[in-house]
């Protein structure tokens, strides 16, 4: 009996003791392994999990600037693979993986506590192979897991709620193929699952969603069905709407495509690559919470690399090269983001590589980025926020019944309205009779440097219409350049369509078409350049017949407005000015520390007030906060965060959820900083920036 006990104790000590002592830390510069998946923890360390060469899982961590990884095995000799590491909505880190063999793979889930797996839970049930797990967390922070189960030559996409313990089968009736399921939970708590499925002969992207009551039947997302669509990845930004990226063959090679849910339908699929190389393995995340960034791998002949593009508003940046390799296979990039810090991992032959950097470093270091960087802003504090420039031709200058009449034009009328509503305001008349847009483009720089107005009201092109040798596309191009010149100078432009005319040209289709075409281009331009549009054509053209109709708004020459027309112009400009995103005021910055028992967070607490010029505060979506180091390049401020004005999720109570405040913890505490804030309208138009505020004086 005693002998048996001794043997049992001996066996136990041999089996238990190694698991305590072998799970230790070591420092490495090269990580040999596969399937790395990164996350950035609250201490701003890059952590990635990967499958090591001992059939287990390891965790590598490193801090910004470190060349070495702190490496530790967290699961030993368990035939584990496909690890996924994700943070929940409280920032706690979870690990999901496959474990087992070919015949029977199980899915396991565990919380990561102090970089260790303590206890883990089996998600899958039964004796069938399970693979490709993915996880996300609903707004109540409950985990949802999706994976593929294979049985009788059929593939089943399963999803499980760990709160209710219910499991659903999603891909009915498309069981002939299912791969790479991805799950994301949007701001309305809708659970989206995407996968590569097959209906006919090609792989395609399918999706379904759970609206709180049931899963809808699977839908196909891609339009083309001639070529394979593979390797999806998905995510949600602050806006709470899901995005999906994938790789698809376009007839020549694989390219990266994306689509996003606009609240009612999926956007038209668009590509972000178009070349003769193979672009694949896309992964998506969101910078600053709402700027989508896509990384992917590219292989072309003997050159391979990892690339990324990010999108601000409607424009994608140029491609940025993150890594390049000659003759070595490079693939499977994954990206993790915490505010403006990016952690990217990828596979290089049999090793895992990573890049851990600030977003600004990425943009700054890349020779491939030539796009205007919309994450920076250059303040122009000398601009007068009560000054406006009216820029254009004779209609701007004031012309009435064949006579120059600047005192009767819209400029003095608008100035009077502004004075009445906003106090002392000035509208400068920069209308040049007879001018076409080429002339306007030629003098815009002088106008901008001669005045210190914050706003410019641009209406030009009426004369271009009658000059047959100028295409309306060129006119639109010239207007675009005028708008860009304003933006470069910190002047906020408002763009107007040209008004209808009732002279003989109106009755020639050629001229009439040019007017309509130019106005259509101007409307597109306003959207593309994110500037407010004042549609004076529509206002004039739709003027009520009972009040005299649109022709009554023109003077005797049937080209320039009548007095009533100028009055309508002034009112219409003012209507748009009323809805401008005027910058916040009274910016206050304070260095503070906020602590709970075991954690102290220090940073700059910025508060502000809405500009009293705002008439209707419901038309605005967010504030954008920019920061500059006091000792650095003072003319350039970097984007820090976007603060929603309205709470889209009432479950959150964090300081940086929404409102007239922001707690900036991404700073070096030994440095001083300056801040600017701008207001963004619901349509994405960002207003001019506020006065500069700094943290020089107040510290707590």
């Amino acid at each position: 009996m005693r002998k048996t006990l001794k043997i049992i104790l001996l066996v136990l000590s041999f089996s238990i003791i190694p698991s305590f002592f072998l799970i230790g830390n070591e420092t490495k510069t090269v990580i040999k392994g596969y399937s790395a998946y990164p996350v950035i923890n609250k201490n701003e360390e890059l952590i990635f999990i990967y499958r090591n060469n001992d059939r287990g899982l390891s965790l590598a961590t490193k801090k910004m600037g470190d060349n070495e990884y702190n490496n530790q095995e967290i699961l030993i000799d368990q035939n584990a693979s496909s690890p996924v590491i994700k943070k929940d909505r409280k920032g706690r880190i979870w690990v999901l993986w496959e474990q087992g063999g070919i015949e029977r793979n199980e899915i396991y889930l565990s919380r990561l506590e102090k970089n260790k797996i303590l206890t883990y839970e089996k998600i899958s049930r039964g004796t069938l192979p399970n693979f490709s797990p993915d996880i996300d967390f609903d707004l109540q922070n409950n985990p949802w897991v999706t994976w593929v189960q294979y049985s009788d030559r059929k593939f089943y996409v399963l999803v499980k709620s760990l709160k209710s313990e219910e499991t659903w089968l999603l891909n009915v009736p498309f069981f002939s193929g299912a791969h790479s399921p991805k799950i994301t939970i949007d701001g309305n708590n809708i659970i989206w699952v995407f996968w590569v499925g097959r209906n006919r002969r090609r792989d395609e992207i399918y999706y379904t969603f759970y609206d709180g009551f049931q899963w809808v039947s699977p839908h196909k997302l891609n339009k083309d069905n001639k070529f394979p669509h593979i390797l999806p990845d998905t995510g949600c930004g602050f806006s709470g709407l899901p995005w999906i990226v994938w790789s698809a063959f376009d007839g020549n090679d694989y390219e990266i495509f994306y689509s996003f849910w606009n609240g009612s339908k999926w956007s038209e699929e668009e590509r972000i690559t178009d070349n003769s190389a193979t672009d694949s393995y896309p992964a998506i995340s969101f910078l600053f919470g709402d700027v989508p960034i896509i990384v992917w791998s590219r292989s072309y002949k003997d050159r391979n690399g990892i690339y990324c593009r990010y999108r601000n508003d409607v424009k994608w940046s140029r491609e940025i090269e993150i890594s390049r390799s000659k003759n070595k296979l490079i693939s499977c990039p994954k990206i993790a983001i915490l505010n403006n810090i990016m952690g990217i991992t990828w596979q290089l032959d049999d090793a895992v590589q990573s890049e851990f950097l600030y977003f600004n470093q990425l943009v700054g270091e890349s020779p491939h980025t030539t796009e205007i960087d919309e994450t920076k802003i250059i303040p122009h504090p000398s601009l007068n926020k009560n000054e406006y420039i009216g820029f254009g031709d004779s209609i701007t200058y004031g012309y009435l019944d064949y006579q120059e009449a600047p005192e009767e034009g819209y400029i003095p009328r608008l100035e009077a309205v502004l004075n009445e509503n906003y106090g002392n305001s000035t509208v400068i008349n920069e209308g040049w009779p007879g001018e076409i847009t080429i002339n306007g483009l030629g003098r815009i720089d002088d106008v901008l440097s001669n005045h210190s107005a914050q706003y410019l009201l641009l209406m030009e092109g009426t004369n271009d219409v009658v000059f047959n040798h100028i295409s309306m596309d060129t006119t639109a191009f010239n207007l675009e350049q005028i708008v860009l010149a304003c933006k470069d100078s910190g002047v906020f432009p408002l763009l107007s369509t040209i008004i209808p005319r009732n002279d003989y040209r109106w009755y020639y289709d050629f001229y009439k078409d040019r007017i309509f075409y130019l106005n259509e281009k101007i409307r597109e331009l306003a959207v593309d350049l994110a500037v407010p549009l004042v549609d004076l054509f529509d206002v004039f053209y739709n003027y009520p017949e009972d009040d005299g109709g649109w022709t009554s708004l023109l003077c005797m020459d049937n080209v320039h407005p009548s007095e009533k027309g100028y009055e309508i112009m002034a009112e219409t400009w003012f209507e748009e000015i009323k809805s401008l995103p005027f910058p916040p005021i009274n910016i206050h910055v304070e260095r503070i520390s906020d602590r709970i028992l075991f954690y102290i967070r220090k940073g700059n607490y910025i508060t502000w007030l809405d500009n009293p010029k705002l008439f209707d505060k419901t038309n605005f979506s967010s504030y954008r906060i920019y920061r500059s180091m006091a000792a650095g390049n003072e003319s350039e401020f970097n984007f820090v965060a976007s603060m929603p004005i309205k709470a889209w999720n009432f479950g959150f109570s964090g300081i940086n959820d929404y409102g007239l405040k922001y707690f900036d913890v991404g700073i070096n505490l030994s440095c001083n900083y300056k801040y600017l804030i701008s207001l963004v309208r619901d349509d994405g138009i960002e207003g001019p920036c506020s006065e500069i505020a700094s943290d020089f004086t107040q510290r707590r």
Partner: protein
Amino acid sequence: MQVILRKGDSKIIKIKCIFVVFALVLLAVGNIEAYPQEQIENTMVALSLGDYFSASDIFKQIYGSGGSIYSLDISRIILRRENHNVALSLGIGFFSRTGVSTFFEEETKFYLVPSSISGKYLFNTKYVIPFVELGLGFYSYREESNIHDTSGSTFAWRMGCGTYIKIPKLKFLKLIVYLKKARAIAVEDKIEIDVGGLELGIGFVIGFNLFNQIVF
């Protein structure tokens, strides 16, 4: 760091004074009646409810000065000489408190599970059994908030005193009143907090005899 003195702090001092006076009176009464008493049961299980007052100023700032603690304590007499008894005691408690962060007042929750092993000296008198104890503790703690989650554990020193109060005609049932003090330094990310403190409690005790041969 600014420490805000809360309303409860002066209350603690008052309670402490009352307790000490009360204990002294009971001891005095016990000494007067100090002739061999009927032996007390060798095993006593106490369930008690107490107030827990943290020793940490920053704890008070975030969570207030104290809160309720629920405790279970099992004492086993291992040595007995007339009215003098020595016991080994195992205890475990549960304490939780909700507070707010110091600046933004974001909600945070703190959980503490103190467990202990201690030696206890009990002096049996006619009406009361005063005791003193000294022991080691193992404190598990957890702090949860949107800002950060922390969990860990630390060792502690504990000392205490109190008295069992006999209930006439109900030999197996007693009341207990006690005061315990603990020092338990927890270190997380270079932040050092004494999660120990003062515990003042009252409860009831069930006594019974079990394995009398183990009592020396």
